[in-house]
């Protein structure tokens, strides 16, 4: 990455990496805070998550500006061009992760008076979240270290989260059938679970980007898929 004859180019690329790392840190925090707010029924924390989202958006914008400027100024080739395209793509995934966390936080506010039907459900959500978080952390480290092997580990493990999401869905259905008064809250929880699963998909995207940056071509072969919940996202109210 470093050792260009034009040192200022190294500085540009270094700045881009730093901004992506900063965004990554924020996105990780948004994930854990949003789910914490959900399981603890904590409206203040939910509002904090919502308030942090514009910072992530602003960082993405900054990365886009820096990238276009660097492309215009340096006309990068080969690995250098992929560095910049990679930063743009990772920033895009992180911004989406921020949106998904914000969406969970909004559902926390919309369902403030509701209680969880079971502890098991909470543990399920927390478990899934910690898995997504560890994958995101690993892939962001792989991005920073340009570690292809580590990125591929993340890429191959997406089906685990998908399977957890499917099992959470089954459980939620049971509660809805048991007592119709559970239905509204359970549907919100389904969306939250789906949001967490989507965050995992973005981690997979980042793994693909790391592969592209290092190898210069996309990963071939289908994505591992353990998810059977085809569930389109509806915007949260509030």
């Amino acid at each position: 990455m470093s050792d260009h004859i034009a040192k200022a180019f190294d500085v540009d690329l270094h700045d881009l990496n730093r901004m992506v790392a900063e965004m990554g840190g924020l996105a990780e925090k948004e994930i854990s805070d949003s789910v914490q707010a959900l399981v603890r029924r904590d409206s203040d924390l939910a509002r904090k998550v919502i308030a942090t989202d514009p910072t992530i958006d602003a960082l993405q914008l900054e990365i886009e500006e820096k990238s276009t400027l660097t492309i215009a100024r340096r006309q990068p080739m080969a690995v250098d061009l992929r560095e910049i395209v990679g930063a743009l793509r990772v920033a895009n995934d992180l911004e989406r992760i921020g949106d998904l966390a914000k969406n969970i936080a909004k559902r926390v506010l919309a369902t403030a008076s509701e209680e969880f039907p079971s502890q098991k459900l909470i543990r399920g959500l927390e478990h899934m979240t910690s898995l997504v978080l560890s994958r995101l952390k690993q892939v962001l480290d792989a991005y920073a270290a340009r570690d292809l092997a580590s990125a591929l580990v993340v890429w191959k493990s997406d089906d685990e989260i998908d399977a957890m999401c499917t099992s959470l869905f089954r459980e939620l259905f049971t509660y809805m059938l048991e007592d119709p008064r559970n239905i509204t809250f359970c549907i919100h929880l389904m969306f939250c679970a789906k949001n967490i699963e989507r965050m995992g998909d973005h981690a997979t995207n980042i793994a693909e980007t790391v592969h592209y940056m290092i190898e210069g071509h996309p990963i071939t072969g289908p994505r591992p898929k353990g998810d059977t919940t085809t569930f389109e996202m509806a915007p949260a109210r509030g």
Partner: protein
Amino acid sequence: MDALVDTERNLTAAAASQVKVVARNVNVHYGDKHALKDVSIDIPANAVTAFIGPSGCGKSTFLRCINRMNDTIPIARVTGAIEIDGQDIYDRRLDVVQLRARVGMVFQKPNPFPKSVYENVAYGPRIHGMAGNKADLDEVVIGSLKRAGLFEEVKDRLNDPGTGLSGGQQQRLCIARAIAVGPEVILMDEPCSALDPIATAKIEELMDELRENFTIVIVTHSMQQAARVSQRTAFFHLGVLVEEGPTEKIFTTPQDRRTQDYITGRFG
């Protein structure tokens, strides 16, 4: 029936990637200096091939081998083989003047003759006896100026001196002069390095049109220019042809570390 179809397909494929110039183990010495080392390459017809590489790596030296311009340098010694359409161009019986009509050259600095615009272009066809009368010659001159994208700009001053044109116009005049003798191959050694971006864009556009009928080889120091105009790119370093292939491959995923370092600006 099937066999016939197959044969046709093979012929088409061969025509599409027809090789115009073949170089094998070309070495050039200037006195004691070994400037070009064992260069072998196939240059396809109807395509633009770009030669890139750091200053002094031998790009111009190799370009000059293709029309035997190195013959004019007393200390230069060329070995190896170069064929155009299967014909050995270093064959003793070959007429070098004829060869240079088949292989035209455009230089870094536009170098029009100190004559009129018209005479600059008419000179070649005249000495090669390619135009029987004034009407034929007019046709060749105007046709060449048109193909070089210059005619509209100079049609009212065909009798003014060529040296009075702008740099970009002079370069297109030199291209018109090169194509007037009906060459098959056009060699260009940094043809745009003295031109502004607009004049450069015009020459690049021209190359793209000319490649339909000619085989073009261009030496350029601009990676972006090579990426824009060429279909194949060859990277030279210290007299060695390091890597050669489809342009998009060389500029996105080069195989050799030296190529990568050069195109990304990492050479010390």
